[in-house]
């Protein structure tokens, strides 16, 4: 709901700060949710935190005027992928309370590597784009524009993608068969 307000607000001249505020809220939610996701001791909780992160990311798409991508994110990620993951979690007997051995004992190496990457990336992002601004007019792009682009310029990747999905479908069935 707030995201929708923010998107409408962003279209007005005075609404920039709303959009900014909304973005920082979303970013905070996403990062906190992400951190909780990788540290929590409960698999289902992790999945739910991921859900929160994905919703927040959908919110940032809305700010960027990518309405169709945002809705697709909700439909595919929240509606399909997350349900599938939760399904998988439950099928593999997730315990109700926490589990101790979810993390590797040498996770500090992972943390070190991740922190190192973050440092390098932040530095290079800052060097490269400094204070460059996004265009002021972020009117949501029409679905038709997206579809026109997919079915003209990107028709070949699109077709390749359909083949990939088919292969994944068959692959998943073959891998998970019970015989």
């Amino acid at each position: 709901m707030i995201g929708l307000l923010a998107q409408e607000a962003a279209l007005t001249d005075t609404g920039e700060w709303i959009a900014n505020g909304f973005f920082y809220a979303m970013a905070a939610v996403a990062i906190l949710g992400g951190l909780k996701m990788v540290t929590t001791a409960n698999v289902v909780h992790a999945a739910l935190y991921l859900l929160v992160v994905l919703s927040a990311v959908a919110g940032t798409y809305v700010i960027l005027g990518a309405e169709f991508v945002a809705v697709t994110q909700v439909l595919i990620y929240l509606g399909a992928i997350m349900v599938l993951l939760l399904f998988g979690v439950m099928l593999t007997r997730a315990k109700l309370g926490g589990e101790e051995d979810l993390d590797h004992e040498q996770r500090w190496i992972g943390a070190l590597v991740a922190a190192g990457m973050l440092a390098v990336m932040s530095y290079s992002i800052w060097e490269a784009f400094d204070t460059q601004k996004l265009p002021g007019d972020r009117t949501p792009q029409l679905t038709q524009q997206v579809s026109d682009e997919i079915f003209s310029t990107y028709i070949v990747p699109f077709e390749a993608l359909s083949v990939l999905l088919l292969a994944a479908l068959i692959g998943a069935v073959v891998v998970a068969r019970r015989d």
Partner: protein
Amino acid sequence: MFAAEEAVANPWIYDNVWLIPALPAASFVLILFFGKRLPYKGAEIGITALLAAFGLALIATFTWIGDIQGLEESEGEEHALVTDGGTQTVVLTAEAGEEHGPARGAPVVNEVEWFGIGTGANQVTLGSDGVEAVDGAEGEEAAEPSSGFNISIGTLVDGQSVMLLFVVTFISLLVHVYSTDYVNGDRRYTHYFAFLSLFTASMLFMVLASSTLQMIVGWELVGVCSFVLIGHWWEEKPNSDAALKAFLTNRVGDVGLLIGVTILYFAAGRSFSFVTINEMAVSGEISQNTLTIAAVCLMAAVMSKSGQFILHTWLPDAMAGPTPVSALIHAATMVVAGVYMIGRLYPVFYEGFSIAGSSINLMAFIGGLTTVGGGALAFVQRDIKKVLAYSTVSQLGYMVMALGVGAYTAGLFHLFTHAFFKACLFLGAGSVSHACHHSFDMKADMGGLRKYMPKTFWTFVIGSAALAGIPPLAGFWSKDEILVGTGAFPGTGGNGTYTIPLIFGLITAAMTAAYMTRTIYLTFFGEYRGHGHPHESGPRITTPLIILAFMAVVVGFLNMPSGFVDFLRLPSGWAHLFEDWVEPAGIASFVGVENGFTHAKPSLLLAILATGLAVGAGVVVWRYYERLYAKDPKATDYVDGPVANNELVAAGHRVLVEKYYLDHLYTDVIAGGIKGPVARAANWFNQNVLDGVVHAAARSSVGLGRFVYRFVDQGLVDGTVNASGRTASESGQFLRRVQTGQVREYATLMFGAAAVLAAVFIFAF
């Protein structure tokens, strides 16, 4: 579609001719999904769809004929109608045919753009250089064909495609009806009908294709369907082998097809359109050499699809499928695809092989070879279906030969007549085997059947007589026209003097009559040699037989020479109707060009000669078998006679039985031969050259080694080696711990290294 706005209204059927392939295609889907639940297991859907498609094909045929008659009356200039989406342009072809008698209908092309790459959306491409917009509205949008990559999908209606629409829907309808009895109770009854429908749909799709690309789609679909249907009873190994063989042999030719189409695409200024390619080939815009290469490549496709020597081997094996499928494959759909393609791109072949004025070319030669070679093989078969299969090979060779000598109409006319009597013969063979407990062996399980199944017998005899070219049945007219078309017989004057094809043709005429007589004798005369009691088949089998036999009698009269018509005092309009209807403007347009092909003049003498040969050969064979079975009524093999007594004949017989050793050539010599000698050569090289070198090196090094051992090795080297060995071993032991097999740790290393590398790049440069 947009009938109201059209400048020149096409007849409804021309715009909606796509319905004809769409109906069987829809039937395929419906049968697949709902077939098993229906009272007749899906057969009713197929038959209904085919009935509707046949009705539409009839409408198309009569509309087309009406157009031709109208054009003939008005003697107007010819124009091609090119419809594009909704608007239409009338095209005046440059070569309007005043010089060559009545103008004929030009192809009606209906195209919608399927998709384009690299051009703006909605760009319309009329892929024809000779196209000149009269309508004006769309004229500017007729983009250069070279600006990007557009694929149109559409239909092309002309005499040739209308003729095949009629034949395919007609035969397929009869085959559907026939199959309801013949495969009754089969475990994959529903699937059988589904694929029968799809087979028909793909063939119709190919027939109506307006571009080479579309034709390839249809061509491959036909191939896939034939694969499925030939292997219908795939549980038995030979059947699935036959299906694979058909499919793989066809792939060989498909390579040629793809290359040929690609060459033509670029040669014709990036166009797949038949009309464009043909017009450019005729007008000389594509160089002779290009056309020759393209024609040779396409010829490979024809050889595989239409069973020409030396790629014909799959065709007799394809008899493994159910008999109605064989009928459909041989009469109407698959094997005529190649012949149809030659006709469709005839200018390419005509120019590419310089058919006019020469006396032999690749196409005529392959056709002639096939017709004689296939005919000879038919003599030694025991399987009635194989006789017919080799007969088909032979007759296809006839058609290709006809097209090769420039007798275009004669070739297509033979395709037309052959469809009816060959379908009749195949279905008859099916009926016979139905009676003889599903055996096809003429010698072991048949004989004397004329008493038990008179309807099958008489229709089979009519079909055989038509095939053998006994006047006045259908085969006579078309075969005679081909013989005349070679132009080698005195006084006929065709496009060249093709003496060798004429001789081949005459030999085949005699052979055809001979092996068909043999077949009839073995099947229907003498005493019954099988077991059980044969009986006449049911009405769903005999009715199609009777219809087809009737057609085999009458269709020949569609193309009587005018001399004959005058002789019988018939209306002069009855002469060469087929020629008027089928010969398209694309071909007609270059009849007027210098050195273009002309129609040969029929010769009574040649007709009498060919008929005499056929009758003579038939009589000789008849006498032979009569005497053979007089000695032993139950003979199932050659008890006596030249094969048993004469070494030379026996050798020839062996060659024929082994099918010219072609299968051995492919499996043993080519496939086996490549791997065998290569392996042997490698072995020899290994044994002699490499080993020799190694041995020599070894001997010399042993000497050297002894020397070195004493002085260098023991002292200096050993110490170093041992030290380095220990180092390697210990460092390996250490590094082994890195290789934990944990994907996670590899990922850690990877990401860590990436971070470090990135940092190095950022800060160092």
